[in-house]
């Protein structure tokens, strides 16, 4: 019963994290970059949104500015990586650290900014979970449709190919570096949007919001894709799967809390989930070699699969 009572909240918050995971999907899966900026940019989104709303801004402009701030954080990581040649994982860590100071500054030196749903008009709040679920489904749908339209444009296709095969992309005249910057901007823009929505949902932005966000995002991606790739391996279904992955993650999360797991151990749990998903393909291929001989890829017949 307690679990059922917790379910609407889990779904609402899960959708917010699912949205963030869609942002992580753009960097991790599409661009093939493990971007650690997100731990900072989700917090930036939350802080910017909360501070602006608290100072009397309307909720929509506050969310949009939070998104812009997120795009900027991604662009910074992208430039550190492409212009200054810093490995992408380090570039993300550096930006994340910069953002800790930036976020403290945004919060005015305090560690917390609160917004009150009774005073300020918010898009969603935990006081009304059914409404929050509806709002979140609408926002996730809009984001997925926008990404779907974008990634099938002439420009969008080269963003995909940049992550898939940078050599081929360059040979076909795509500016791989610029594409990485654009992609990281989009990714962190979505992550900051999720942060802005999270602040409204919780009624506050905390300097520690977002610690370990990348791991939650990856967990949502792995959970989501393990299902959606079996249904239909295409872009839109994958994005829907990732959003659903966030929801599943949060339902499990709430469930283990109800089982009595100390909340201190929740980050450990997230990390273990991601470790398992990352390790399984490697362990399978290394320690449990398939009995079937793997056919050589390069020298196979030109007729190839099918008409040989």
């Amino acid at each position: 019963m307690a679990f059922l009572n917790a379910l609407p909240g889990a779904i609402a918050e899960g959708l917010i994290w699912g949205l963030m995971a869609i942002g992580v999907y753009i960097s991790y899966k599409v661009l093939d970059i493990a971007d650690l900026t997100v731990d900072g940019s989700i917090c930036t989104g939350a802080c910017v949104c909360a501070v602006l709303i608290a100072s009397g801004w309307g909720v929509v402009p506050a969310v949009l500015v939070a998104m812009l701030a997120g795009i900027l954080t991604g662009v910074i990581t992208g430039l550190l990586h492409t212009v200054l040649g810093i490995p992408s994982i380090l570039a993300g860590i550096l930006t994340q650290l910069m953002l800790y100071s930036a976020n403290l500054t945004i919060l005015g030196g305090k560690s917390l900014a609160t917004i009150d749903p009774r005073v300020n008009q918010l898009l969603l709040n935990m006081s009304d979970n059914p409404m929050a679920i509806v709002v979140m489904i609408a926002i996730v749908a809009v984001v997925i449709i926008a990404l779907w339209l974008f990634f099938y444009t002439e420009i969008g296709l080269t963003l995909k190919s940049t992550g898939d095969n940078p050599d081929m992309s360059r040979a076909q005249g795509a500016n791989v570096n610029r594409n990485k910057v654009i992609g990281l901007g989009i990714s962190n823009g979505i992550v900051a949007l999720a942060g802005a929505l999270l602040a409204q949902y919780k009624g506050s932005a905390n300097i520690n919001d977002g610690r370990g966000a990348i791991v939650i995002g990856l967990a949502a991606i792995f959970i989501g894709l393990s299902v959606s790739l079996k249904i239909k391996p295409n872009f839109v279904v994958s994005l829907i799967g990732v959003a659903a992955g966030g929801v599943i993650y949060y339902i499990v999360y709430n469930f283990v809390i109800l089982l009595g797991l100390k909340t201190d151990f929740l980050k450990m749990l997230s990390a273990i989930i991601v470790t398992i998903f990352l390790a399984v393909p490697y362990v399978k291929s290394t320690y449990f070699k398939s009995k079937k001989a793997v056919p050589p890829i390069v020298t196979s017949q030109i007729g190839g699969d099918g008409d040989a």
Partner: protein
Amino acid sequence: MLKITNLQKTFNPGTVNAKTALSGLNLTLEDGDFVTVIGGNGAGKSTLLNAIAGVWKPDYGTIELDGIDVTNMPEHKRAQFLGRVFQDPMKGTAPDMEIAENLAIASKRGIRRRLVRGVKKADRKQYKELLAKLELGLEDRLSTKVGLLSGGQRQAVTLLMATLNRPKLLLLDEHTAALDPKTASKVLYLTNKIVSESKLTTLMITHNMHDAIEYGNRLIMMHEGNIVVDVRGEEKRKLTIEQLLNLFEASGGSKFASDKVLLSK
């Protein structure tokens, strides 16, 4: 059309691993030249193609394409002039994307990409016709992910992508070397067909002396970062493998014995 002047490149300069890959190479190609490039391992063949493609900058010298100095132009900008097929069949296509999407990306090489749909209905029809010409049954598999194709099929698709927008210069870097003999000859047949139909200026590296003689109107042999043999026209048509080996011996001197094994008849 292509004019290379005094091109020099040393890898790892100033270290014990220093390797002079190009030592003051000069080369001029005429419009429509189909040049085969031959030479032992480490002769500088791939280095030459990578220099033209802009993978890195040469230490010295200039590269001109159709009168435009491209020596300092970044790789992705230079791509507007060049079609490239790599030795590694995995390198020329995006495996996680559909055949049609790969072709769509190639169709915009050298053209400003916009925020409009990448693969339109009319495009699919055009791609279908072009794929049918490869005679590999790929015309009905436009939505197949390229990663599911065999090495030979991928190489054929890459060839199509390299020539979809007529390149000023087609660079083929031992593009059949990683394929089995039957597949290699099919891809080579397609290459010759496309190159001669469109009269493309082409540089093709091969390790196969027979292919080097059979295809193209000009043959160059490289050794220690320079061109040591340059045969064209009537002379090239009458060339035999024995003559080629003699030419190689005459130019390469004592190195010949060790390099000979690297070239296959």
